[in-house]
């Protein structure tokens, strides 16, 4: 799966969590812009993990601050 495919799938996954309808760019941050709290993060990560059949450990999550970084991480996990 290429990066653009992953991007479009995650874009649809994020919708129910993006309650304020924030515009999503590569630099959109989960804590700052999207205001995800820890419970939302857990549910969102679980949705991505199920979609791509991967694990994003908390150690890896700690390195992911922006939407672009998430796409990169999932892309890498998919092809790792």
């Amino acid at each position, binding site marked *: 799966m290429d990066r653009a495919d992953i991007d479009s799938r995650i874009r649809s996954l994020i919708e129910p969590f993006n309650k304020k309808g924030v515009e999503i760019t590569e630099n959109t941050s989960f804590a700052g812009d999207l205001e995800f709290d*820890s419970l939302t993060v*857990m549910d969102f990560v*679980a949705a991505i*993990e199920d979609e791509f059949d*991967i*694990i994003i*450990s*908390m150690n*890896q999550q700690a390195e992911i601050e922006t939407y672009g970084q998430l796409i990169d991480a999932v892309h890498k996990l998919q092809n790792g």
Partner: protein
Amino acid sequence: MSEGISQSDRPVTHDAEKGDLFSKFDPLIKQREDLLESGVEDPFNLVMERVLSPTQAICNGRETILLGTYNYMGMTFDPDVVAAGKQALSDYGSGTTGSRVLNGTYQGHKECEEALKAFYGMDHAMVFSTGYQANLGIISTIAGKGDYIVLDIDSHASIWDGCSLGNAEIVPFKHNDIDAMEKRLRRIPEEAGKLVVLEGVYSMLGDIAPLKEMIAVAKKYDAMVLVDEAHSMGFIGENGRGVAEAQGVIDDVDFVIGTFSKSVGTVGGFCVSNHPKFEIMRLVCRPYVFTASLPPSVVATAATSIRKLMHNADKRKHLWDNSQRLHAGLKERGFTLGTEEAQSAIVAVIMPDLEKGAAMWEALLKEGLYVNLARPPATPANMTLLRCSLCAEHSEEQVGTILDMFERAGKTVGII
């Protein structure tokens, strides 16, 4: 999860603003000031001026029924337990001034470990200075770099901190969700070492885990299993060994973690295990090695208490009766509770919000009842809870009094 005052169980990173190193705590300082300005007695600054019994104390000048102490079996004033502590204090002095692996292992520490081995019917027992350190030490030591820890999202702070201290990959799953746990285990590389961490009773809502199913799944994926039975020791399971025993799966648990600060009635923590190489933990587990051991009086009280807890069927039954009576009575009066039926000796009353919760807590204190106020972010789903933990020494009459107090306070605050 824990009663962690105003912190979440998972470690929080505070954003630094300008100012000094304390600036990051400003929002919390403000929230606390606002709460106190509303005139509430400080829920986190209560002083027990005198303790009359396991169920009664003088708090802030008032005679108060204690319903939030985790002193489940009421062993704190047991005459045999107190006598053993006094004797050890006279015979061995006030402290060991040393690590267990240097000069800190006394006869009493060995006797305490023997009592635990007998209580759990296991080959090895290791006593730590607190329950927190038992989780911190065992989890951070056995799961290393490249290994995976799969744990419930509502785990206690000591479990999360054990994860933080070690180098394993941390993979949480939704609370008590067997399917979510299995999915994660399935996705972990087959050759990687795996540790599943569960609790018998989750202390926030007082609900129990489906250990039978979860442990079967863990074993299917060759994971080792650690179960924290802090809130079940002494009264859940035929021999009081906890939820794993009650569900018939204790033989599949690789490590049971427990504490002396609840049913045992003193302070300290432990891990029991049948693993043939378990004793090496004493040399490699840093929170065990680099801490002074428990004072002789503490291990003497613990050992005596543990041995007495092995023969306590009547007290266990009374504790269960108390828990069921309180649960049913609160439900009948219109309170929303954390579980449908009483699953443990913890009954959690769900408050509509923090303001009402704090007001209710204070109204109960003025009635002469102490419960725990648990609030976000320490709580699941950001709930505000009044957590009640029952004691085998609460009389039937006291439980009736407690229900009356809840009814009056609930009406005053406008919750029921």
